[in-house]
């Protein structure tokens, strides 16, 4: 199994770590930039993107994650993670890593009472994936090089551009581990 980590500054990093562990990986909780050394992949979990962004200003996280990507490592972001990976963030506008050629809108489905569970058909998986959308963001624009792996109500919800995978939903809290297993399989 490739060495992988979960960004553990804030959010549901524990749920991701457990999902990866159920797939046979031994994920590390990553709270400092120096811990990225040697990882083949990093999950940026769900949580509050503004909180993650705030905590990421304490160290050179942006430079480190861009270098991490440039050296051939992979990134998988869910919900807040997808927001941080996108090129442009709206509602409200905020800084982002811009490793995914996409525009994303925060809290695009409404508030918590509008959160929902659904079964998704995912192009790279054999069976439908039961997932949760929690105060979810929505991709409103994708670059030409971005591949849509799943959509819900005509909106792309799972996308890939090279070594960056981003989901606007949470596969990690429903115990739907197929996507984590697939992602681990894509790592060099």
């Amino acid at each position, binding site marked *: 199994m490739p060495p992988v980590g979960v960004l553990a500054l804030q959010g549901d990093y524990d749920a991701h770590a457990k999902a990866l562990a159920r797939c046979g990986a031994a994920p590390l909780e990553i709270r400092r930039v120096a811990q990225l050394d040697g990882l083949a992949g990093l999950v940026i979990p769900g949580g509050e993107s503004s909180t993650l962004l705030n905590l990421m200003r304490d160290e050179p996280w942006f430079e480190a994650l861009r270098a991490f990507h440039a050296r051939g490592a992979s990134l998988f972001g869910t919900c807040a993670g997808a927001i941080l990976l996108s090129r442009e963030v709206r509602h409200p506008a905020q800084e982002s890593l811009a490793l995914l050629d996409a525009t994303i809108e925060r809290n695009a489905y409404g508030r918590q*009472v509008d959160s929902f*569970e659904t079964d998704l058909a995912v192009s790279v998986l054999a069976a439908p994936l039961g997932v949760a959308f*929690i105060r979810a963001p929505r991709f409103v624009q994708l670059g030409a090089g971005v591949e849509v792996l799943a959509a819900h109500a005509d909106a792309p919800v799972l996308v890939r551009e090279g070594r960056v995978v981003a989901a606007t939903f949470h596969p990690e*809290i429903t115990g739907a581990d197929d996507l984590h297993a697939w992602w681990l399989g894509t790592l060099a």
Partner: protein
Amino acid sequence: MTDSIGTLRLKTGLAEMLKGGVIMDVTNAEQARIAEDAGACAVMALERVPSDIRRDGGVARMTDPRIIEQIMETVSIPVMAKCRIGHFTEARVLEAMGVDYIDESEVLTPADEEFHVDKHAFTVPFVCGCRNLGEALRRIGEGAAMIRTKGEAGTGNVVEAVRHMRALMGGIRRLTILGPEELMAEAKNLGAPYELVRMVARDGKLPVPNFSAGGIATPADAALMRALGAEANFVGSGIFKSQNPALVAKAIVRATTHWQDAKIVLEVSKGLGDPMKGIEISTIPEAERLQGRGW
């Protein structure tokens, strides 16, 4: 298939997203902005922070919806609000407003001394306070999707938060070493639903996220509660009753994330000015302690 809303997984799911974070009490849009800028993962919209409620006395009720609305319009992070224990109509009003989480809270004056809200009946998730495992499991049985230890709100004194977290975690550890035949008697002693007792005995943890509240005033307090088992921290009066709210808020966020790293807790603890003054618990008459509200 049709999409489903209001499931327990969605309710506990939002609590999962708040883990490792700090939920801050705020009383207006300006404070909400300070909290968000400091890295709060959510805010609790209130008319008065608990220390003022304690000082003012009288009946403490649900906050004016106008204040909650202004806070919801100001920040992009989740907004929580409190209803009185048992006051399911206040809860319906808060749900209708679209608040993201309801705290059925002992900080407000209870509306019902016998019954808590039937939280299963709502789409919006609830958090409830507890002092021990039995109380936590009774609230989860009623549908709470997040538990926080009660502590003693508005005191700036962490001792009760510590007492309640130790009691809760000790209670959980005890269940994991009991034999199957002992669990029904333990459920009876705890006054807790048997199925939940079996679940905790099997998993060694609560079936919902477990946060801390009621007395955190410094970064070290926040790190301590994480070390004792809290998955996130609620901070009430500790921030906006301190000399430098923005600095204290930012420092408590850092200490909650990096609680295992004493050097970071050290760095963020420097030069924060005076924390909130704080109250020695023994000087508060038993009848005025908020933690005794609810059962």
